[in-house]
């Protein structure tokens, strides 16, 4: 007798638990957001001009989305360059110390722009030539 009552109670509870869900209306809608595109920093456009026996690499600072910060370096061998008024000057004296007077070489100047406070950066490269011109060691743009 007790078993039958228990079974009946369980069945009743199960029915009571399922019946409201089975009769509940529902509807749905979908919202698709427009694609959000992340920004992109402007890569510095590097200009080059003779500066004595060396070459001067310069660029116009970007202010998008805000004023970017710039660093410059020589690659292979890696060496930081000092920036003055959005430009760096690479002289034979500098390269002689780095390359040991290895004329006929090329060097790459890399300028990197960074968005302050973030990991975003963008870089541009400029290749310079270190050679003898009229028997004088010279760094030229071409």
């Amino acid at each position, binding site marked *: 007798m007790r078993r039958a009552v228990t079974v009946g109670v369980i069945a009743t509870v199960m029915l009571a638990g399922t019946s409201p869900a089975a009769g509940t209306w529902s*509807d*749905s*809608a979908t*919202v*698709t957001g427009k*694609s*959000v*595109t*992340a920004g992109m920093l402007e890569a510095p456009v590097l200009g080059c001009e003779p500066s004595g026996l060396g070459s001067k690499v310069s660029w116009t600072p970007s202010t998008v989305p805000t004023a970017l910060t710039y660093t410059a370096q020589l690659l292979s061998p890696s060496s930081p360059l000092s920036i003055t008024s959005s430009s760096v000057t690479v002289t034979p004296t500098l390269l002689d110390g780095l390359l040991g007077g290895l004329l006929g070489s090329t060097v790459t100047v890399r300028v990197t722009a960074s968005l302050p406070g973030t990991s975003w950066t963008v870089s541009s490269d400029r290749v310079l030539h270190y050679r003898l011109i009229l028997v004088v060691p010279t760094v030229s743009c071409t």
Partner: protein
Amino acid sequence: MSGRHAAPRRVEPRRPARRRAASRTAPRPTRPWTPVVVALVGALGLVGGLGTQAYWNDVETVSGATVTSGSLDLLVEGQQSYTWTALDLANIAPGESTAKVLTLNNAGTTPFTVSITASATASDVALRDAMRVTVVPAGTVNQTSAVYPRAQSCTGTASFGPAALTSSATTVLSQSVTVDPWGSLTICVRLQLDLSAANETQSDTYTPTFTLTATQVTP
């Protein structure tokens, strides 16, 4: 033979006196056809009874009013499927955020509760992981800066976030708010590109998708 002849007397067999005295008051003995008579009377009675069922009667039909079921209809900005073009920030950069309000309408006749799940896709998973999403029911937009870093936020208590969405549906609003028929509910959503967004997230695209489900309020 003499002329006086006595009429022949009917001679009846003598019965015991006691028996004769009792016959004066007792009913006559039942005859065999008595049950037949009773049956006939009964039959007539039944026939008479049947006759009463032929009395006049009438039947009227009552037609009830047409019962029309209600409806449950969820619309977003008046549409079933909506492209949320307003939720955008051109060239979003790390640290910047945008917030917009979405309006849900109960266009049916039944109160319902709303739940929302969300997922996101991106051209680079790094951008998806760096985009922080906040959902605030009944929230409003508060713009704190219109220039870099552009910033908007949602006022109110968030039901989700700030956190990144994945490619799988994540519940960003459970069924906690009831919307009455012809009522509406606003949902404020904020997207913020985290300051730590990786360098490769530049120029990538990010698309969130929200699925809203209205469930009838159980009477």
